[in-house]
């Protein structure tokens, strides 16, 4: 009876381990950002932080102070790359990402990025296109070029490429950060575990 009991336990354990370990979870490395305007910090910095974010996501907006704090803390030792991951549940996120890309082509990605988060409640509705143009005007962008860019399907494809990369890297929600390849989801993980991880990286 003991032999059978042990065999039963072994079978249950084997099935558990086989299922838990067999599930593939290969995380490919990120490709280099194609748009230099979405990067901050020196390219040779020892720490690279990649953020996958969605402008319509309230949690991403709430995570912004944490991102700024971390970047201020490490200064030139950190390089930051912003990547788009507009979620399907957010109807205006893709258009917002495209608008930010178009602002970036006129050298205003970061101010536009900040405006989109600061005024998130204002544009996440059917007035979004009008608001995107208003923000472009406020930042002194060339309106005709901005409009033409927003209707260029190649820009949307660039955003989609980022989103595809996020899915390939098993990014399930926003904001997700990769710091030198290690994943941190949300502001709390960035502030606590992320900072600890950066300190470890810098000690090496």
């Amino acid at each position: 009876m003991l032999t059978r009991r042990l065999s039963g336990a072994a079978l249950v354990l084997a099935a558990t381990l086989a299922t838990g370990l067999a599930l593939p979870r290969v995380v490919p490395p990120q490709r280099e950002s194609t748009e230099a305007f979405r990067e901050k910090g020196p390219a040779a910095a020892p720490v690279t932080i990649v953020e996958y974010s969605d402008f319509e996501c309230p949690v991403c907006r709430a995570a912004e102070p944490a991102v700024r704090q971390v970047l201020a803390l490490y200064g030139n030792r950190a390089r930051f790359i912003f990547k788009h991951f507009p979620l399907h549940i957010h109807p205006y996120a893709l258009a917002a990402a495209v608008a930010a890309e178009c602002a970036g082509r006129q050298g205003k990605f970061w101010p536009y990025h900040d405006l989109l988060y600061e005024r998130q409640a204002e544009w996440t509705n059917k007035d979004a296109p009008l608001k995107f143009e208003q923000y472009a005007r406020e930042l002194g962008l060339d309106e005709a070029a901005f409009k033409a860019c927003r209707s260029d399907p190649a820009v949307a494809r660039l955003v989609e490429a980022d989103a595809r990369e996020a899915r390939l890297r098993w990014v399930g929600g926003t904001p997700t950060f990769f710091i030198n390849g290690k994943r941190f989801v949300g502001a709390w993980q960035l502030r606590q575990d992320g900072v600890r991880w950066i300190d470890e990286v810098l000690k090496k």
Partner: protein
Amino acid sequence: MNDERGGGKTWVLAGLLARVLVGGVLIAAGASKRAKPPEEFAVVIEAYDIAPQDSVQSLSVLLPWAELLVGFSLLFGFLTPAASAAAAAMFSGFLLALLSTKFRHIPLPDCGCFGQGLHLPTTVTIALDALLLLPCSLLSLRQGARFLSLDAWVGRKAPRALGPKTL
């Protein structure tokens, strides 16, 4: 096809069905979480605001394994009463956690039950979770369903070795 408590065919089949159902749900829940990075599940645990922050990362790794282990125990019918009690404890704990978020008005974008694979509204999750407690109770109260189970195989007397008298 009677179980050890003298139940009829219906109870035997109900017991088997309950084991497969509860075991299957737990295996699906554990596997879908294991298929994703633990940090994704950690964020869901954080959202409940119940577990101490220092334990969140460990829980995000351990809970899917616990779900798989209890799930396979039930599916194979091994230590069924203990496994069903463990499953009931897990469902009750999850139910209390969900209800507490309702009372504290904490919005949950994702209950975390099946990783990112399936998104259910909190009320639906609460109802399903409560419903799953019924088959768990059935399995616990009836001392486990032994039909097609490892428990029955373990409990059965081993066939006597063939000796000269039987030849």
